[in-house]
C-alpha cells in the first residue's frame, strides 16, 4: 500500500526532512518512506524505487513530497499523520545541551577568574589534577583520600612554592571567605580564624563559636596528616597561621588537630606565638598546657570555641563543663538512670564524625578505660569484627572499614541505622551516644532518618523492663538548611537528650555510666 502526498510551495530544509524521514521509517509496518523536496534528483529516485510515479508530474523543487509504502492502509495513514505532526512541531530552540567543560583547563578557559579547585575524584587520579590546579594558580581543597604521603609532600611543597592553599588530602571541611566548602556549616562572619587538621573538629568549633556569639573569618582545613607526619611537618597549618597573621580581619586564631608529632607541635606553637594575636590551641587527646603569652590551650573542642569567643570579645574565659544548670544536669541523670535494668551496663557510641568520635573515645578511655573502638590507638581494643560491639564501644562509622561500597554515614544515615538495629539486640547497652552533624554535605535530615530506629530501640528496652538512655548533640547552626530547631525537636520528641555540644553530651554520658556502675 503506497500513498503520495504533495504539498505545493512548502519549502523545508533538507536536513530537517532527513530527520523526519528517519523517524517515519522507524514506524512499525512502514516498508519505505521518502520525505523530501521535489528536486530532480529526488524525483528520479522516487521513480526508480517505485514509490511514486505519475503523482510527481509538475512537481517543482519548492514542493514537498511525502511518499510512504506501508503494510496496510492504517499504517500508511498513521505514518502520514506522524510525518505531518513532526513537520509542524516547533523546533526546540534553546533545548539543546549547554556546554560543560571536560577538563580543568577547559573550566579555567570558561571561567578565567576561578581561584579555587575542589577535588573529590578517586585518589589515583586526584594528585594530577591538584598539580595542574596549583600550576594554574588555583588554591585547592582536596577532599579525596587514598593519596600517598609522598604525593602529599610533593603537592604541599608545590603549594608552598606558589603560596597557595592545598587543603587536604582527606579534607572534608573548610570555610573560605565565609563560604562553606564540602562538609561545612553556615557560620556568622566575625574575627576568629580557624585552622584545623580535623573535619568534624572544625565543624564543631565553628558552630560553637557562633553559638557563643562569635563569628569567623576563615576556616582552613589542612588534612589529617599535616601535623601527624614529620615529613609533611605541618606545612599547610603553618601557611594557614601565617595567612591569618597577615589578615587584618582576623583578631583571634584557633588551631585544632588530632595529636601532632612533637616537633611539629612545637613549630606550630612557635608560629602562633609569633603572630602576636591571641591564639587558642586544641590538640585532641593532649592535656592542655598553661597559658603562655598570647597562647591559650583548650581541653576540648567546645572550650576552644569558648576561649576564642571570650578573647574576641575581650572577656575572660571561665572554665566550665556544662553550659546548662548543674541542677538540670542532675535531674537528667536521675531521670535517665532510674528505669534501667540491672543488666544494662555499657556505653555504645555510634558516631558519624571522626573527630567527635575521638573526643568521646579519649574521654571515656581516660575516665573509665578499656573502651573498644575502630579508632583505638591500643590495638587490643580494636574489635575483631567492626560490626560487633564489645562491652564499652565507641565507633567512628565514617571509617573506611564501614564505608566500603557505601557513602559516608553523614551522607547516607542507613549505615548508622543498621548499626542501631544491631545494638538494640544487646540488652547490656545502657547509653547510646550519638552525634548529629548538620550543614552542607550532610544528609537533608540526619535525625529524622534514624528517628524510627531510635524510637524502636527505646520501646524495645522499655518492653524488656529497662530504659535506654540516648544522649546526642547537634553540630550545626541556625543558618544550616536542615534546621537545627526542627532537628532538636524531633530528637526530644522521642525522649532523646540533646546536649549543647559533643563534649557536654560525652560528659553527661560519662556521668550516667558512672552512676550505672555504682
Amino acid at each position, binding site marked *: 500500500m503506497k500513498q503520495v502526498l504533495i504539498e505545493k510551495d512548502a519549502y523545508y530544509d533538507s536536513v530537517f526532512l532527513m530527520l523526519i524521514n528517519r523517524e517515519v521509517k522507524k514506524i512499525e509496518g512502514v516498508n519505505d518512506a521518502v520525505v523530501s523536496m521535489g528536486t530532480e534528483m529526488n524525483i528520479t529516485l522516487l521513480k526508480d524505487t517505485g514509490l511514486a510515479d505519475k503523482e510527481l508530474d509538475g512537481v517543482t523543487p519548492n514542493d514537498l513530497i511525502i511518499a510512504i509504502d506501508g503494510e496496510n492502509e492504517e499504517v500508511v495513514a498513521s505514518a502520514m499523520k506522524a510525518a505531518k505532526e513532526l513537520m509542524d512541531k516547533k523546533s526546540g530552540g534553546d533545548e539543546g545541551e549547554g556546554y560543560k567543560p*571536560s577538563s580543568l583547563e577547559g*573550566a579555567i578557559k570558561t571561567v578565567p577568574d576561578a*581561584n579555587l579547585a575542589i577535588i573529590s575524584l578517586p585518589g589515583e587520579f586526584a594528585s594530577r589534577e591538584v598539580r595542574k590546579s596549583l600550576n594554574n594558580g588555583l588554591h585547592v581543597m582536596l577532599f579525596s583520600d587514598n593519596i600517598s604521603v609522598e604525593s602529599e609532600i610533593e603537592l604541599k611543597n608545590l603549594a608552598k612554592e606558589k603560596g597557595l592553599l592545598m587543603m587536604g588530602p582527606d579534607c572534608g571541611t573548610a570555610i573560605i571567605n565565609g563560604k562553606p566548602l564540602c562538609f561545612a556549616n553556615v557560620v556568622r562572619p566575625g574575627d576568629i580564624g580557624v585552622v584545623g587538621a580535623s573535619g568534624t573538629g572544625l565543624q564543631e568549633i565553628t558552630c560553637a563559636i557562633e553559638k557563643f556569639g562569635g563569628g569567623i573569618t576563615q576556616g582552613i582545613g589542612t588534612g589529617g596528616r599535616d601535623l601527624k607526619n614529620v615529613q609533611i611537618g605541618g606545612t599547610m597549618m603553618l601557611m594557614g597561621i601565617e595567612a591569618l597573621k597577615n589578615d587584618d580581619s582576623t583578631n583571634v586564631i584557633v588551631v585544632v588537630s588530632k595529636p601532632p608529632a612533637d616537633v611539629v607541635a612545637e613549630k606550630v606553637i612557635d608560629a602562633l606565638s609569633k603572630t602576636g594575636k591571641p591564639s587558642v590551641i586544641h590538640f585532641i587527646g593532649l592535656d592542655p598546657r598553661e597559658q603562655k603569652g598570647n597562647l591559650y590551650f583548650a581541653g576540648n573542642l567546645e572550650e576552644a570555641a569558648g576561649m576564642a569567643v571570650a578573647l574576641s570579645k575581650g572577656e575572660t574565659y571561665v572554665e566550665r563543663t556544662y553550659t546548662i544548670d548543674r541542677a538540670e544536669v542532675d535531674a537528667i541523670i536521675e531521670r535517665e538512670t532510674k528505669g534501667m535494668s540491672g543488666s544494662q551496663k555499657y556505653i555504645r557510641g555510634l558516631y558519624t564524625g571522626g573527630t567527635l568520635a575521638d573526643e568521646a573515645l579519649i574521654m571515656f578511655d581516660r575516665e573509665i578505660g578499656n573502651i573498644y573502638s575502630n579508632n583505638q590507638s591500643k590495638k587490643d581494643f580494636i574489635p575483631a569484627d567492626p560490626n560487633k560491639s564489645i562491652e564499652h564501644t565507641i565507633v567512628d562509622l565514617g571509617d573506611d572499614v564501614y564505608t566500603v561500597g557505601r557513602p559516608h554515614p553523614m551522607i547516607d544515615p542507613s549505615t548508622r541505622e543498621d548499626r542501631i538495629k544491631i545494638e538494640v539486640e544487646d540488652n547490656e547497652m545502657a547509653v547510646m551516644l550519638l552525634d548529629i552533624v548538620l550543614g552542607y554535605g550532610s544528609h537533608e535530615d540526619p535525625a529524622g532518618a534514624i528517628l524510627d530506629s531510635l524510637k524502636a530501640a527505646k520501646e524495645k528496652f522499655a518492653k524488656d523492663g529497662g530504659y535506654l538512655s540516648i544522649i546526642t548533640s547537634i553540630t550545626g547552626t541556625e543558618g544550616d538548611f536542615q534546621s537545627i530547631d526542627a532537628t532538636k525537636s524531633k530528637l526530644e520528641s522521642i525522649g532523646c537528650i540533646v546536649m549543647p555540644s559533643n563534649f557536654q553530651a560525652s560528659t553527661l554520658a560519662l556521668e550516667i555510666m558512672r552512676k550505672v556502675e555504682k
Partner: protein
Amino acid sequence: MDVKNINKLFKQDLSAVNLGLESFADNLKNEGVSAIQVQWKPPAGGNKEIADLLEKLDVIREKVDVAGANKKAAEIINNGKPTVVDISTAGKAIPGMRKKLFLHAGPPVTWDRMSGPTRGAVIGGLVYEGLAKTFEEAEKLAASGEIDFEPCHDHSTVGPMAGIVTFSMPVWVLENKAYGNKSYATLNEGLGKVLRYGAYSEEVLEKLRWMESDLAPILKKALDLYGELDMKNILAQVLQMGDEGHNRNRAGTSIFIREMAPYLVVLDEPKEKIQKVLQFLNANDHFFLNLSMPSAKCIIDAAADIEGSSICTTMARNGTDFGIRMSCTGSQWFVAPAPMVDGLYLPGYTEDDAAPDIGDSTITETIGIGGFAMAAAPAIVKFVGGTPKDAISITTKMYEITETENKIFQIPALDFRGTPTGIDILKIVETGILPAVNTGIAHKKPGIGMVGAGLVKPPEKCFNDAFKAFVEKYS
C-alpha cells in the same frame, strides 16, 4: 614564608572549579558562589598504559618546551595566508607528479585494501588518463602494481572523498604568502555521479574532460584578470555567513561566483560556454570545498616539523583507514580503521549503504574551521543531532583541545570569539575529547555518490599512538 596569594584569596569573591561530587558545586551555588562543574573522565578513557604515560609527560614538559613549540605552531597557523595564485594541471604543478602516479585521500593504502569509492575513482582515472581502454582493463592495471598510489598529503595536495588526483586533471594552485609553501587540489566536480564518490561511467569521464577543456581554462582566464584570490579573507567572511567550510559551502561558493563574475563576462569566449561555467558553479554548493581544503592544507603545512610540537597537522581518511600526523613527527602516519559516520541519510539510503569515513576534507578541522566552527553554521546543526545550542556546545568543547583561538576566523554566535585552532594531540589524550568532525557519507559501492552526512568520531587509537610516539621521542 610567602602566603600573599592566600591573603589575596581572602579579599576576592570565591570562584570554584569542582571536580568530583557535583553536590559540592550545587552547595556553593546555593550560597551565591560561582562554581563550575567539570564533566571529568579518567584520562585516556581509563586506559592504564596511556594514563601512566601521562605521568611521564609531566616530566617531559619540564625539559622540553612543549608549550613554546605549540605556541609557535599556533602562531604559524594564525599567520598563514593562503592565496589562490593559479589554475594549472596536476602534471605541471604538483612536484613529483607523473602519469602513472595516482594520488588518493587519506593515509597510504594499497589496491588490495582500497575501499569501493577509491577503487571506482582509480578505475575512472585510468580510463580518463588513457592508461586503459576499458574499465575491466583499468581494474587489471590498477591491481598489476604498475600504478603507484601515494597519499595526496605527501604531495602538498588534498582531495575530497576518494581524492583521486591524476596527471591531466586541472588543479588549484595556492601559495601561503606568509611562509611560501604551496598546496593543490582538483576542481570540485559537483554532485551526483562523480569520480570522488567512485563513479566512473562515461558520463563521469565526460564531465572530467569538460572540466579540463572548458571549465579550468575559462576560470583560469578570469582568475588571471582578477589577480590573486585572498582565501583567508573569504574564509573569514563565509564563517559569518553560515558556512563552516567543510559541510556547508553555500556562502563560499556564492562569494566565489560574485568575485569571478565580472571577469568571466568579459572573456573572449562563447557566451554559452561562460553560461555553462556559471551554471555549473551555481548548481554546486560544494564548489568552494575544493578551495577551503587546499587553503587549510596551505596553512597547516607551514606548521609541520616543529620540534616538540604536539599539534595535529593532518587528519585524513581513505575509506579504509583514518590517519593523522603530528608536527614533531613530520610525515609519520598514525592510523586506525576508518569509522562509520553517524549521520542522516538522503532519501532512499540507510546505514547499510554507507562506506566507512573517507576523504581529506578533515584538513579543515586542523585549522579551526569545519566541525570546530559548527557554531557558525546553524543551518546544518541537524547533522549533529539537534539545536543551535548543540552546535555551540561542540565548538566550545573544542577549545579544550586546541592551542589557541583564531585571530581571523570568528563566530558571531560566540560574540565573535575566534574559532578553536591548533589541535593539540596531548590535550586530546588528556581530556578524552576527540576532535569534532562533520563530513559527507559516500555510498560503499563505487559510483553511487553521496548518501548522507553527519558526525564522525575519529578513532582514539590514532591519537593514543601519536601520543605514545611523542612520549617515546622525548623520554
